């Protein structure tokens, strides 16, 4: 139950490799913040600096208003769940959960109460006398969470806690973490490489790349208003289609010309472009696969390469005349069986999209022309 504040935090390794560049972030009390990014982006390093497991090369980390740079992990009042659970193999589940309490010299009857209480919440009461070796992945994960839970720590850190679980269990545990969060009601910092986890869990998402924060925002913000191409492609699956094209301004009208067609930008997007005073030129036009539709005419002509049947939807991999690869995501229910059967390799299609789903990025810098900068 505390705020966390990072000011100009930097991590430079001995070999002069900079893992984290000036990291600035304020995390409010009881907020759930997710650090997300591809592997090697510095998200785990940042978390470990907050935990005190990595030295902070420069900058200040504050927890609850206290500078903790020089404090040992044990003195920071944090709890942490590790990717590989890090359960003590020689101790029973009970002893694992009780470990931190016993280090605090808590009386055994209180320890008992706290541990059994946590075990009940997590549904692992029947395994309390077992060793971690005898548990399944999901159960181990629960023990790891239990171990962090009993601490009543100020900040709850989780380092890719679900990435060692299979897909089904991961979905289940994700839901449980949401429940847990409601019960614990404390500050969470959660690290993951999986954008779905980030979107579903976080109050706010911090998207990182190469040690730099690309964008901080709520799930809606990062999805609808990505600051740059990287964020746009990273959030959402399958990733956003990028089309190299021209943005043409004629008085107060805007046109894009993907693949030789000409579409006018209308509505809200037009207003926003006008408000920003965007001039036009070479751009990258981003359109999410689910926002593309098949049409009979006036669309962009392309050829079907792969048809992935995902159950509720189809992922159509198509290429245009200049060999640009696009993905179109279509709800299965929108097509008849015959239409679906006809979607085979080499079939010619036409796709189109509306103005309101367009994202405009500068071709050179990759910044969003409307929301970037």
């Amino acid at each position: 139950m505390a705020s966390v504040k990072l000011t100009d935090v930097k991590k430079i390794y001995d070999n002069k490799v900079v893992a984290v560049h000036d990291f600035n972030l304020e995390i409010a009390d009881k907020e759930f913040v997710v650090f997300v990014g591809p592997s090697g982006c510095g998200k785990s390093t940042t978390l470990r600096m907050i935990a005190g497991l990595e030295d902070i090369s420069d900058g200040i980390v504050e927890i609850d208003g206290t500078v903790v740079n020089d404090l040992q992990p044990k003195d920071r009042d944090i709890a942490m769940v590790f990717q590989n659970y890090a359960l003590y193999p020689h101790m029973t589940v009970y002893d694992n959960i009780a470990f931190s309490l016993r280090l605090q010299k808590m009386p055994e009857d209180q320890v008992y109460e706290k541990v059994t209480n946590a075990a009940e919440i997590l549904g692992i009461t029947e395994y309390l006398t077992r060793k971690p070796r005898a548990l399944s992945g999901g159960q181990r994960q629960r023990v790891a969470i239990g171990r962090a839970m009993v601490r009543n720590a100020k900040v709850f850190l989780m380092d890719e806690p679900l990435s060692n679980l299979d897909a089904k269990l991961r979905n289940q545990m994700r839901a449980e973490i949401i429940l847990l969060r409601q019960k614990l009601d404390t500050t969470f910092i959660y690290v993951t490489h999986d954008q779905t986890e980030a979107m579903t869990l976080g109050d706010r998402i911090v998207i990182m790349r190469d040690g730099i924060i690309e964008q901080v925002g709520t799930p809606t913000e990062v999805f609808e208003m990505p600051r740059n191409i990287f964020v746009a492609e990273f959030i959402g699956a399958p990733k956003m289609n990028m089309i190299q094209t021209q943005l043409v301004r004629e008085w107060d009208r805007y046109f894009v010309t993907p693949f030789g067609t000409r579409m006018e930008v209308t509505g809200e997007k037009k207003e926003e472009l006008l408000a920003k005073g965007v001039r036009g030129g070479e751009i990258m036009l981003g359109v999410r696969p689910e926002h593309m539709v098949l049409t009979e005419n006036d669309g962009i002509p392309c050829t079907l390469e792969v048809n992935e049947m995902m159950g509720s939807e189809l992922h159509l991999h198509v290429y245009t005349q200049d060999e640009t690869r696009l993905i179109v995501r279509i709800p299965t229910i929108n097509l008849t069986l015959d239409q679906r059967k006809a979607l085979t390799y080499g079939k010619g299609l036409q796709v189109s999209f509306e103005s309101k789903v367009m994202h405009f990025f500068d071709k050179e810098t990759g910044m969003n022309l409307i929301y970037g900068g």
Partner: protein
Amino acid sequence: MSEKNVTAPMKRHMGLRTSRAIGNSLIYALLICISIIWLVPFVCIVLQSFRVELKGPVGYVIPKQWGFDNYVALFQTDFPRWYTNTFISALVTAMLQTIIVLCMSYTLSRFRFKMRKPLMRFMLILGMFPGMLTMIILYRVLKDLGMTQANAVPGLILVYIASSGMGYYVSKGFFDTIPKSLDEAARVDGATRFQVLKKIILPLSKPIVIYTILTAFMGPWGDYVFAQYISFGTSSGMNVAVGMYRWLNKDQIANSYTMFCAGGVLVAIPVTVLFLCLQKYYVEGVTGGAVKG
């Protein structure tokens, strides 16, 4: 025709099986040979230690006259003293050396400090000097301190344990296999580094602790060179290796060869028993840590 078709694969199958059987029996024969070759010297020692009729080396193995004479004779020499010397120095060395080695290897495995790599490289280079060379000076220094010859045991222990920090390779290799996230979890849970060592690492390191104790015990138990320097011709300060070595000198061998065998049996028994009991850990230590280095 059809019969042939059925039997052809059968025949090949049988061929495979018989060739494997021949191969296996060859291996059995080999293993039996090896076992005999490896055990013969030890059987010979035991048999000859019971020989009464002649005390020198002879060309046959099985004694013509059996008895405990050689064992009794052992106790009229300085052998009990040597045995005690050896036992005390081995025991103390085993304890202290284990502590030192574990401290060193745990540190080098777990802490990342500025001097770590240079330190390891420095110790590697130090190890390339013949250790025997240092004995020339250590002998004179210890002599000045009165820890040689008749008082060889403390001096010997000092020499054994003093540089044992350099033998950290095997146990560091083992510690490296314990995930670092366990340390980190414990530290986040509120443990100091010392508590991490005591409550997490040591309980998980039973095999390597036992391996270290065992090797630390066996070193002094069979050491010749250092003991030879430190005791320097004084019988009461010798260990079994130095003392018994002299029994095989040209002028003594005719009278003490069988006594050497009897002494050898007495020296070998405790370590062998200890070793067989703890074999599992020794094997784990050798296979786990030795190669990783």
